[in-house]
């Protein structure tokens, strides 16, 4: 409590002497018949019936003054910029932090010195501070008038050394029938900067979460060690690939590398004067644009999106950086390249030796394996291109399969009805599954939690065992 809050204290000279005081109290106690006094300790004040006031005894008075000084020192030592205003808005007390601010900025940003009037300072504020100075003055008037207990406002102070953001609060203290005010100013520039950094961090985190949520994760990514995957994750962005979209043409620079999640990309070789022929099929088990990892920046095949779905992509330079940095990623890519090479060579042989019906069955099964549902949109022309045959040949083969109730083909939508029957019809190329380099489950549902599932862990463990056998530098 400050000295001002205490009532006027009178020290009667006849009570200053200890003996006189003791005598007075003794007489007091004896004089009151009903008073059953127990001297249980010391006293602070005596009442003076003549004046009707309380008289603080010297010791209590000294203690109170000491504690007032302590309160003032404690207030001064507060790290915040605080000033106390009287009912007229004059600054009666400031903390050392407030004074330091005023000295450093020479009155800028409502820096009012002790003895000055806060309202006058607001009125005389420069044009840069006019707006918030008016708001502060209005708030202070409200607080001093008792219309509100607390006023708070945020403002920015422009200076050649940079902008500073402040939060100013004015709290009212009702005392002796008038309202005084405590003004607290806080420099929130650092906090705002930290908040902005955090929110940009949050944006990045939400982007990563979006990538993680975007459909079934790619098997190649899922099989990477967690550390490598997490590092890669910050560069990945989800993307929707639509049917018919060409990712790269032969000879074109590859700007992105794609990891399909639930879409399907055909790798087509373009022969002059002929239709493009499919030589490979990449789904969620692999990556499109792997040639980058081999050090070749251009595409050799046309990459055509065959089934609409989601994928994640990464910029080429970032992908290359990660490749160079992570042997684990290199090995994963080499495994995929090996599998794809086998698929391509097997497809070449298949196209030469096997009948259209068996090839169509194989192709449908391979597509089914890479897609979440057993129903996909395909036209006969497209199938003819994929298989390198005439349209009539595809129509005939599809009709045969449909007659045998293995598939249903209606308005360009193919539904696989009998998976086992189709497998029996397919050529031997499909049955060499390990040779074809595809191990994904047939049921798309299985892969929904591929990143956490036991199957993925098993794949990862298997992959890590493989990695241990590999020499450390592969490329």
């Amino acid at each position, binding site marked *: 409590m400050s000295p001002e809050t205490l009532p006027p204290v009178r020290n009667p000279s006849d009570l200053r002497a200890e003996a006189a005081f003791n005598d007075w109290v003794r007489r007091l106690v004896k004089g009151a018949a009903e008073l059953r006094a127990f001297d*249980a300790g010391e006293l602070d004040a005596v009442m003076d019936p003549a004046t009707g006031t*309380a008289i603080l005894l010297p010791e*209590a008075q000294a203690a109170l003054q000491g504690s007032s000084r302590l309160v003032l020192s404690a207030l001064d030592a507060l790290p915040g910029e605080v000033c106390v205003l009287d009912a007229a808005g004059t600054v009666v007390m400031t903390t050392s932090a407030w004074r330091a601010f005023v000295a450093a900025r020479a009155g800028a940003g409502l820096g009012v010195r002790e003895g000055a009037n806060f309202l006058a300072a607001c009125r005389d504020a420069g044009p840069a501070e006019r707006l918030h100075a008016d708001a502060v003055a209005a708030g202070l008037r409200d607080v001093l008038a008792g219309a509100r207990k607390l006023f708070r406002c945020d403002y920015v102070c422009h200076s050649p050394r940079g902008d500073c953001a402040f939060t100013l609060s004015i709290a009212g203290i009702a005392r002796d029938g008038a309202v005084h005010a405590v003004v607290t100013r806080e420099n929130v520039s650092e906090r705002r900067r930290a908040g902005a950094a955090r929110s940009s961090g949050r944006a990045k985190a939400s982007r990563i979460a979006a990538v993680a949520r975007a459909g079934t994760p790619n098997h190649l990514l899922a099989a990477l060690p967690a550390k490598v995957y997490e590092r890669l994750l910050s560069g990945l962005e989800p993307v929707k690939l639509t049917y018919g979209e060409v990712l790269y043409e032969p000879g074109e620079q590859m700007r992105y590398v794609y990891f399909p999640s639930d879409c399907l990309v055909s790798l087509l070789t373009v022969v002059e004067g002929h239709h493009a022929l499919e030589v490979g099929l990449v789904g969620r088990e692999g990556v499109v644009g792997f040639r980058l990892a081999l050090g070749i920046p251009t595409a050799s095949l046309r990459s055509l999106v065959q089934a609409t779905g989601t994928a994640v992509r990464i910029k080429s330079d970032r992908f290359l950086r990660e490749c160079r940095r992570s042997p684990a990623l290199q090995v994963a890519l080499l495994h995929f390249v090996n599998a794809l090479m086998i698929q391509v060579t097997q497809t070449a042989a298949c196209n030469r030796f096997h009948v259209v019906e068996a090839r169509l069955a194989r192709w449908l099964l391979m597509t089914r394996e890479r897609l979440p549902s057993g129903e996909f949109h395909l036209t006969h022309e497209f199938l003819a291109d994929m298989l390198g045959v005439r349209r009539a040949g595809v129509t005939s083969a599809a009709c045969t399969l449909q007659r045998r109730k293995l598939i249903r083909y209606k308005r360009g939508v193919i539904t696989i009805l009998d998976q086992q029957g189709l497998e029996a019809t397919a050529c031997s190329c499909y049955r060499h599954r390990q040779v074809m380099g595809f191990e994904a489950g047939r049921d798309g549902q299985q892969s929904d939690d591929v990143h956490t599932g036991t199957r993925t862990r098993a794949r990862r463990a298997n992959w890590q065992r493989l990695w241990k056998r590999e020499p450390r530098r592969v490329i």
Partner: protein
Amino acid sequence: MARKRTKARAAGAPITTVVVMRLYIAGAAPNSVRAIANLEVICRRYLKGCYKLEIVDVCEHPQRALADGVLVTPSLAKVSPAPVSNVIGNLSDTDSVLAALGLPAGAIE
């Protein structure tokens, strides 16, 4: 169980009475602050919630203190139950306070 309790009451078990007290203090003077703290401890230990306490700051309401016949602070007045009694001091002497409140020392604990 309910019957037993009735019997016990009929046999003259003490009925809890609420002690009404008024403590006169002088602002934040050291003995006044100590008196409040000491009285709180006594109330918590011996009265266990069966009390009403009013604290009067004689610096703010000197006339009230004079009207109540209080001449020094800190001063504790027991208003009810009768008899009325006063204790002067910072209430550090617990036995004296208990005696003034009509609670024999050690009997309650």
